[in-house]
């Protein structure tokens, strides 16, 4: 890494650390759904609306036990985006960072193809993994 690149990285890191933490509660326009077996409730908001074609974006998830339930912390989460009709997913994996109070930052979505995608949120509790999912239209 060159000296200028190292300086830039250091500055960005300091800036990121200096930023105040955003409010952990979901915005009113976050999409919400109950998981497929009703075991948890999840809200979701992408960093770019609508999620773009072939351009990386991030997202935030808020997990709770039910609609007005307790936040789910220290969750064992797997998040993926897939195109069921085409039987494939993304070409990269996302990073999940817990931010507290049931809020999880998900970084590195990249939907490389136009069409119907599905955001899959898999929560494992004990021996059981349960899925919540959101439809995403990429145009």
């Amino acid at each position, binding site marked *: 890494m060159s000296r200028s690149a190292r300086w830039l990285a250091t500055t960005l890191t300091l800036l990121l650390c200096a930023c105040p933490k955003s409010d952990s509660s979901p915005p009113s326009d976050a999409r919400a759904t109950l998981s*497929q*077996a009703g*075991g948890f409730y999840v809200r979701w908001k992408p960093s770019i609306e609508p999620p773009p074609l072939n351009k990386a974006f991030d997202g935030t998830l808020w997990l709770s036990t039910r609609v007005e339930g307790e936040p789910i912390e220290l969750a064992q989460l*797997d998040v*993926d985006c897939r195109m*069921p*009709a*085409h*039987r494939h997913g993304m070409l990269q994996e996302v990073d999940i960072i817990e931010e507290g109070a049931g809020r999880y930052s998900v970084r590195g979505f990249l939907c490389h193809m136009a069409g*119907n995608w*599905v955001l*899959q949120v*898999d929560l*494992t509790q*004990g*021996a*059981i*993994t*349960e*899925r919540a*999912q959101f439809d995403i239209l990429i145009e």
Partner: protein
Amino acid sequence: MSLMTLLLALLLSQVPTEDGSTHLGAWKHSIHGLVQPGAVAIGPGGRIHVAEVGAGRVSIFDVDGNALGVLETVDPPLRAPEGIAVSPDGLRFVSDSGNHRVVIFDADGQFKGEFGGRGWRAGQFLRPMGIDAGEHRVLVADSGNQRVQSFDHAGKPLSSQPLHTLSSEQPEYRDTWPTDVALNPSGDGWALDSGSCGLIVLGQEGLVGPRHGEFGFFPGTFASPRGFAHHASRLYIADTENHRIQVFESRDFGHSLTTTLKPAYIWGVHANRPREGRGKLHYPRDVAVAPDGSFAAVAEPLDGRVQIFVRAAGSAPQVDAQRATTGQAAVHFGMELATDGPLLVIVEPETAQLLIHDLRRPEPERRNPPLLISKAGGRGLSLGHYRRPAGMDLDYDARRILVCDRGSRRVHELRFRHDPDGEIAQDFEMVSAVRMIDFRRPGATGETSFPWPVEPIAVQRTADGGMLVLDAANACVHRFDSRWAHQGSLGEYGSGLGQLNAPVDLELSVDETHLFVSDPGNGRLLRWSLADEAPTVVGEEQLRGPHGLAFGPDGRIWVSDAVTHQVWAFDSELNGQWVFGEEGLARGGLLAPRGLAFTDTGECIIMDHGNHRGIVLDSQGNFLDAFGPRSYTRPALRPERYREEDYDE
């Protein structure tokens, strides 16, 4: 130079070498009439030992296919022998999978001893499979315990190498399923892992070395490889679901932990026609190479044969461009199916997908095969993906499918959308995953612990939204409530009343008063009255390898028999009646039938697994239809055009 030295020199000059001037793979002839030959070994003198899984014996042949003898035991008889090895001094070691033991025969074929027994402790087995014997050591693929064990020739345990311990670091290897092993010249070993589709290098001190290969269809990748052999510097791998033998060159065979493998060549192409042989391969399960490297034998259980291959000139076979496959393997129907309402779901083993069919008829007056409308799943470890999908339950009204993944030890619940009044149309977005239970995780069976994680092989949804799960490893049935909390279990391993051995399917009566379980290890069904949990033995006289179960519209329980190739039905008094089937391809024929289910219209669909087709019967057992690849269905649909000789090798 003495005459003896001259003779020796002449002999040595005839021993094939791996210098690239010749290669193994030229078809010579086939040995037919075997009953599910699952393993093969070649001993001193070129004697070919074939473990016939379905017959419970090891048959011995010379290289020309002349029968030389049989290895059997009496009490108990061999039950699903899945592995055979011959030591350099002529001892024969048989992996007696159904009895969870290794049986030793001396060089004269006399029973010499046994070791093992069912369990997880050192020296015990759960369904041992491949085996290899060196001068001093015996290596056993203890498949159910996901480990390789080493013994001396008397059966004294020397070491045990668990193969799934890498799971936390490499999740793709968490579902290890070792199916074959080999000792190498340095005294280390190799294990073939059918679960992760790779070859694992073993060290003598319990070290597990690198893995080679992964799932795939291209050269150097594998689809459920089941058996392998080595000779000189080459490894020969039976790449079962790719229907080929892959040959690898090992650069430093004597130092196994640093071994590198280089693909050398591939022999055999997929048989397209039923029973097609002459070098074409069909689910090759095992391969063995003669000690002098002069020939090889390949076991194909579904075709009941062993093909013999000799050396030919050149470093590799000539590729038949018209027959060589470079992409995805040809698709076959799997063993299991489920039906309810207008839908039929069939497992496709090569791709670990569920094939969803619509049973409705666009033209009601004409029969048509089930129409494929969607695919779901695929090979993987996440929710909704599978390693070895097995039994299923389809509940059309609830729009739910339960799927057992025997490989990952999980049960998945899926939901689907379907309009019974809508047009028949493809919808590849119709299925989504709901949840899964992972039996390797703590708490899956509540406070009750079992020797092995539950190995789900069949499942049925109950009226209260819970489920019954048949557990192949612990030989019992588990009951779960609608939240999948464990409520108890029924049955245990054994051959007595209320005991099971290698159970494969279950069926609950509509009123949920009786539960039937097919118990092929004991050649029977068990029926439990759920009110008092009293068991009854069913079909002991008629059945040898019961598999699929379903209640017919007349209230009888129908069962397929994978060993006798028949379908039987038992009434409420448990009287059995033959319904359909004999070994064959023509109308009326079946080959190792597996799953069986009734449609809402009272038709019975049978997975004729060995013939790669589905057979449809009416409620009386009369043939109605066959569906699947045309070359397999034509002999049943147009029997007047079927000539046995057209299908002979």
